[in-house]
Each structure stands twice: as structure tokens, then as C-alpha cells.
């Protein structure tokens, strides 16, 4: 259950960032190098936050061999 919760939160967070990038016109200006660097940093941070969200919400249960919680 915690894993599903984690995946849901990660999806919402990713959609929020994707929407924000779209709203500021990232899809129009990505070939400008400064924009590309900004978008790249934003995507990397989004990925790292997603990882931390998963670690925190899912906890260590998914790794326990005899836990019912896997995915």
C-alpha cells in the first residue's frame, strides 16, 4: 500500500513539474543552451526528489523477503 502511495505521489510531483515547464514555455525554448541547462537541472532535481519520495514513503518493507508489500 505504501508503495502505491509512493508511486502516486511521485506521479503527481512529476506531472506538476512537467506542467510548470510547459507553462513557462520550455517546449519552445529548449534549443537555447541556457534554457536547456535550466530544464536539465529541473528534470534532474525532479528525478532526485522522486527517489527521495519513494525512499521515505515506501520505507524498507518492499525489500523484506517475507513482506506482502513488494510493488
Amino acid at each position, binding site marked *: 500500500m505504501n508503495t502505491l502511495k509512493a508511486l502516486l505521489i511521485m506521479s503527481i510531483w512529476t506531472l506538476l513539474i512537467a506542467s510548470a515547464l510547459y507553462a513557462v514555455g*520550455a*517546449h519552445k525554448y*529548449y*534549443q537555447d*543552451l541556457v534554457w*536547456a*541547462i535550466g*530544464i*536539465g*537541472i529541473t*528534470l*534532474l532535481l525532479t*528525478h*532526485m526528489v522522486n*527517489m*527521495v519520495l*519513494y*525512499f521515505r514513503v*515506501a520505507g524498507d518493507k*518492499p*525489500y*523484506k*523477503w*517475507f513482506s506482502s508489500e*513488494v*510493488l
Partner: protein
Amino acid sequence: MKFYVNARYLIVPFMSLIAIVGILFGGSFAWVGVGLFALNTLIDTLTKNIHLAADFDDSGESYGIKKLQYSVMFLMLPVFIALQVVLAYRIFQYNADAPIVINSFLGLSYQAGISGFNLIGATVSSGLWAGLGIIYGHELSHNKKEGFLVSRLIMALSGAAHFTYAHVYNHHLDLGHEDDPATAPRGRNIYTHAWLSHMGQSRFSYILEQQRLRKRGSSALNIDNRWILGYLYSLPSIVLFVWAGGGVGVAALFSVWVIANFLLEALNFMGHYGLIRKDGPVEHRHSWDNDSVFTSWFFIEIGRQCDHHVRGETYFWELDDVEGPNYGIGYFSLFVITLIPPLFRVYVQKHLENWDEKYASAEEKLIAQKFAY
């Protein structure tokens, strides 16, 4: 003999370059990397019964030339960078709607511009060869000097720089135990394992760094945080693909990362599936060996897991047969079986029963019985 022993480990560098040239040539050649993967599966299957031991001279010295092998491993970093650059170049052309025409360079014909279908081929080729290249990231992770950094940089090209720490300080120390996310317990399929192992290893590195920095009195939000630093090493790849193709570029890089990490976790899956260790030192019986000739040469002996896990800092060309548990077929063939979980379950059953009977300790047998297998 010396030439033969050293040259046989050059299959991946050679084929990686062919995959790069294929993407550069364009057209259906963009699929060359995928074709090579299929060809390797065929060769591996046909040669599964050939098993060779490590080669030593009369005085017991290995024929492996350390300087040569390390130079090759270090040189694989620019090769893998080139693999991403040529893919980004093709994405740029696709995104710019470059006309698909045949051009010539130094008398060689190549296709400028690329179709969507062939771009998929180029992306899958890049992912597969980035994933196979992870064998160098693995080997160099055991090097305490500059090789460790090169390992981190190679792994960062696939968004997995955390692997270098997790592999040495988690996988090798906690092997065969639920504390090691890279050991797949009985009943888990390769797809679930790929997710859990990747996330689990990153989580290990994340916690390790938090604890290390806390002891030092520093904040975890720090450039000295090696978990953060590892992801920062991936930033140039992300910027390159964003700049080359926007959404298409990000989707391509994401695909490359997924394929490469799936192959990495497949190796972990095949190396330790279902094996159990109850405390005590890591022994040969806690890994599956995989030493058919093509697997040994192609994967620079990474299949000699039994010896590797007991002598972690031994150079790959010195690893030998230690008569540990062995599936008897190569990694390419086994990989195809793992992709179909019901088939893999049936295939692995007899091997697990054999392990329980011949290799497991009494305590390990008790744990094995707890799995509803």
C-alpha cells in the same frame, strides 16, 4: 598465448564501436546494435557447453596485462559518451525534420536525417550497449584509485552512479540476505527485481551519505553528499538530450536509462537469484557461476560470481572456476529465459533444489523452506 588471453576480452569495445558506427551510418544500420545483441544470444546458446578455466603460465602468473586491460576499461568511458552523442545527433536531426537523403563522406555512403522507426532502433541500440557496458562500471567499482571515479562516471551515463558505492558496500557485504536489494529472493520476477534493486541500491547510497555527513556534523544537502554528486554527474547527459530534442530527447534518454539499468539488474538477478546466506562469511555457494566461453569473454568474466564474491579485488582475468553452483548456460541464453517469468520458474526449480540439497547449510535450508516455492 598472452595476445589471445588479452584480445578475447575486447568483444564489447569492438561491438560498441560497431553500434556507434551503425547509428552514424543511419537508415536500417541504426538497428545494428540490436542485431548484434541477437547475434550474441545465438553464439552464446551455441557455445554453452564450452567451459574454460583461467589461463596461467608455468609459474602460476596470469597472462592478463593489467595496463592494457585497465586502459581499455578507462577508454570505454569516451566510447559510451560517444554512444550518447551520436544518438543525440540523430535526435537533433529527427527533431529538425532533416531531409532523409544519402550523403557521402570519404567515399562512404550514409543517411542524413532519420525516420521515427530507425530512431527507435538507434535508441534501443544505445540502451543495450550502454547496459552491456556496465560491466566496466562494475569492474572498476572494485578499484580503490581513479578507476572508482571512472566507474561512477560510466554508471552516471545511465543515471546509476549510486551503483558504485552500493555494489561494494552493500551488495558484497550483505549478499544473499534481504539487506542486499541486488539479491533476488525466490519467487520474484526480473521486472519487479529491476525496480526494487535499482531503487534499493540508490536508497542504500542515500542513507549511507546521510549517516556519513551527520557524523561529520554537515547537512545532507551538501555538494560533498556523494549520492547527490552521483546524480549531478548525469546532468551533462540530460542537458545534451534536452537540447537535442526536447521531449523526444528526454524520452530517448529515459529509454536508454531504463534499458541499461534493466540489463544491469538482470545480471544481478542471474548472479544470485534464490540463494540464501545466513550470517557468516560469503562463500562460493552464495552465487551462481556462469562460465560458458562466450559469456566469460564477452562479460569480462563477470559470470565467475562465486570466485568474484570471495575475492572481490581480484582482477577479472584471474578469476577461475571454483566449482560453485552453476546454471550451465550463458548469460544471454539465461536472460531470454528470465524475460518469461513462468518459464524461468520452471527452469530454475531443479537448480534451486540442487542448491538446497548440495550447498545450503542447515540454517539456510530452513529459510529456503519458508519460501512458498
